[in-house]
């Protein structure tokens, strides 16, 4: 059925629809589109002479360090992707396709890294396997976790939950009737796994691969904490800009980072388009039969993976309460007295900024998606296209582009630089695509006939907005707000160039405490952030469950 709405050009409703699309869209252009253009522009401006040309590119390509960092980044990302996929598939298969016990506990433990800034995993690994780690101390070894191996483990742990989530979704689509048909046709277990399970999960695995690759190549937190001498593009850009003030070089490296991430996302998108075409509409969910050997082996393997994740996170929490890890294990609260200037003020800043990002982001997304759905004129395609892009932009690049656009004396942009508002906006647009997708799904679930009925009953755009969309989407709005809040609390890479001494942020403080050698205090600070974010995660979990019940 066609559901194109009338275009009453002269009416006030037309303008409400139009501006509810265009106001958020203009903000999106101003705070995402233009900064992206400006980073490209600045990459052509020579750092010293200010002349337009390829000089920055030539300098970068002639630097040994950059080639090494590129090679390191790609190698690290490829290896991380392969290992993550291997474990993620095992966990996803265990949860979706076996009858192993403890599914819920195991899968929630493995999701834990999502509640922490990525560098907390690096921190935890250092406490366990580092020079002063517990393992080295017990066995009197001098381990060196800094560098490739440490980064690899930290990145795998960090990417694992997101990969599992994607692969689980693709396995969930399994149709019991296919397995029944295969059984009747006489296919054995391996054939069924190969031809049905793997064939179904193929696109999920592909898309998980790209997500993991993108997360790893653009990750900043772990690279700085546990990377050691192993230079990667993310740390290279940081040292060019923050250390040497070579903004043009930073822009060039940013664009280099943009290429693999954007390619990965583009390939994943075109693959998922093909997937939609062959998708089945109704599915009889697959309920695996019990199989003792299989179920117990999956339980053991997935428990071990969960144990690894848990031990890293728990170690951080534990260290924060221990006098001198790992030598003097007596209990103390002294690490919670943060020595750094400002103490906990950065935590409050983070909370405030995350709240602002959540409120501003949710509101702007609600109106944007409302406009996309109802506005019939121009701008709709642009909004959809522009909304799909931020996911391909690494936080570092987005942050750097804000420096180019807003670190200026010109009004009105200059006035925002260094303010909490700008950081909140940056944090929101960093996660715009994911939040947009959730909001759009919520919008699509509102039946268009309710919108139509309201109009025929005499309701204008504002009635439709309030009585149809706002009331049907309350829970979606809450979950989008919580998502933005949580991501904003833990993200480091986007804000690293925007924080100023007068406005420090939580994740940034952990990094500085770690740099200052106050690792136990870093652990204490991490624990505080994790506590707040997990509270929000529980709330989100509660809301999503409620929403699921509501829509059924």
């Amino acid at each position, binding site marked *: 059925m066609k559901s194109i709405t*009338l*275009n009453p050009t002269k009416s006030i409703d037309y303008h409400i629809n139009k501006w509810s699309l265009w106001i958020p869209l203009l903000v999106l252009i101003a705070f995402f589109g233009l900064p992206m253009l400006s980073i490209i522009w600045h990459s052509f401006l020579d750092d010293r002479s200010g002349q337009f040309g390829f000089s920055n590119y030539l300098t970068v390509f002639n630097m040994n360090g950059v080639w090494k960092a590129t090679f390191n980044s790609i190698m690290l990302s490829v290896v991380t992707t392969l290992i993550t996929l291997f474990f993620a598939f095992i966990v996803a298969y265990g949860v979706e396709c076996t009858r192993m016990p403890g599914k819920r506990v195991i899968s929630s433990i493995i999701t834990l890294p999502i509640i922490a800034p990525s560098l907390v995993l690096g921190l935890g690994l250092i406490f366990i396997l580092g020079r002063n780690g517990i393992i080295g101390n017990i066995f009197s070894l001098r381990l060196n976790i800094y560098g490739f191996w440490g980064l690899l483990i930290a990145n795998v742990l960090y990417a694992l939950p997101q990969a599992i989530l994607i692969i689980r979704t693709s396995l969930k689509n399994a149709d019991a009737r296919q397995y029944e048909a295969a059984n009747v046709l006489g296919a054995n277990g391996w054939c069924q796994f190969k031809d049905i399970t793997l064939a179904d999960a193929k696109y999920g695995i592909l898309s998980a691969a790209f997500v993991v690759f993108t997360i790893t190549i653009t990750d900043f937190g772990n690279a700085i904490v546990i990377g050691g001498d192993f230079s990667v593009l993310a740390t290279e850009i940081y040292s060019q800009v923050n250390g040497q003030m070579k903004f043009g070089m930073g822009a060039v490296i940013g664009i280099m980072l943009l290429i693999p991430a954007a390619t990965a996302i583009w390939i994943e998108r075109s693959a998922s388009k093909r997937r939609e075409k062959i998708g089945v509409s109704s599915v009889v969910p697959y309920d695996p039969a019990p199989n003792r050997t299989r179920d117990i082996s999956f339980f053991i393997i997935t428990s071990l993976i969960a144990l690894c994740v848990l031990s890293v996170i728990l170690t951080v929490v534990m260290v924060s309460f221990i006098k001198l890890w790992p030598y003097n294990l007596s209990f103390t609260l002294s690490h919670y007295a943060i020595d750094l200037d400002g103490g906990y003020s950065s935590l409050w800043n983070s909370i405030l900024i995350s709240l602002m990002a959540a409120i501003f982001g949710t509101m702007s997304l609600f109106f944007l998606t409302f406009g996309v759905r109802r506005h019939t004129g121009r701008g709709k395609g642009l909004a959809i296209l522009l909304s799909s892009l931020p996911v391909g932009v690494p936080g570092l690049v987005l942050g750097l582009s804000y420096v180019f656009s807003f670190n200026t004396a010109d009004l009105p942009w200059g006035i925002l630089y260094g303010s909490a508002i700008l950081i909140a906006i940056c944090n929101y647009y960093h996660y715009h695509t994911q939040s947009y997708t959730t909001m759009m799904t919520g919008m699509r679930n509102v*039946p268009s*006939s309710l919108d*139509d*009925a309201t*109009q025929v*009953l*005499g309701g204008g755009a504002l009635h439709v907005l309030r009585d149809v969309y706002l009331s049907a989407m309350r829970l979606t709005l809450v979950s989008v707000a919580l998502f933005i809040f949580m991501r904003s609390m833990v993200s480091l890479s986007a804000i690293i160039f925007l924080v100023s001494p007068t406005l420090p942020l939580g994740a940034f403080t952990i990094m500085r405490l770690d740099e200052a050698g106050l690792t136990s205090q870093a652990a204490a600070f991490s624990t505080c952030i994790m506590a707040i974010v997990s509270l929000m995660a529980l709330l989100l979990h509660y809301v999503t469950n409620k929403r699921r019940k509501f829509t059924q």
Partner: protein
Amino acid sequence: MSLIIKDIHKYFDGYAALEKINLTIENKEFVCLLGPSGCGKTTLLRIIAGLLDCDTGKILLDDKDLIDVPARDRGFGIVFQSYSLFPHMTIDENIGYGLKIRNVPKEEIEPRIKELLDIVRLSDYSGRYPNQLSGGQQQRVAIARALAVSPSLLLLDEPLSALDATVRAELRKEIRDVQQRLNIPTLMVTHDQEEALSMSDKIVCMSKGRIMQIGSPQELYLKPKNKFVADFMGHGNMLSNQLIKQSFPELAQLCSEETEAQELFVRPECVKLHKTEKPEAKVLSLQFLGNIQRAEVEWRNHLFLTESHSNEALAVGELVNVSIDPQHCNWMAL
């Protein structure tokens, strides 16, 4: 009141969704838009409701052109297949919604809600939420909500398609009753020819964006103007001019024009089987359908589809005679 639709055209990306639509809905009339999915009937309903623009044409409500009037100001009522009630409002609030946004004072809204709950026989359910009601009950609330504003036209978009067979039959009768009691001109979209036959004063049969025939249920069923309407309204026999001239000379006289390009259309129940002398026709197959039985009969190298009461004894292979009632057949141009 009367609604006149004049020469409406609608194109989607160059493809014609509606062409040359002309139609009148008289006062108190129940009109059905009938056709297969994709024939444009819902598009037409949405254009009349004001939810969709048309490319050319006029919609006149008592000589007032509605083309530039947005849906909210047309003062119609609409009911969709999917109930589409506000889930967060009680059924009373749902019914009163149209009045509330028209700023009708509360003292007037309340008795009106009561009255409407009575009309749709849901007085006992006052104060409940839509998800506490069955599908049929929700659809009745939707009807009451549409009626609350005393619409000048009631639009029903496949209102019964989502319901169970028994509820559907019950609600079919109820909608018709309410419509006749309140004398509201009504336009209903449906793909179910039985529904259209049993409810309407007038059926508009559509195919591929065009109107194929407008007429009373009897006209469309017994005297279809073309093959599409004939097929869509049920089974039938198409008998060639030649066969009629040879075998049923008395029917050939009914043909007004002497062209060869005509065929006689006969519904299966108008083809009678007799067990008289010298039977020439043979029963090839027999289908039992409960109250009736459908037989395929071969006569003079021609296949006839017939329907008769199940209590008439028939057997496959049996020899019978065939006759056609001249009152219930129709010459149709090819």
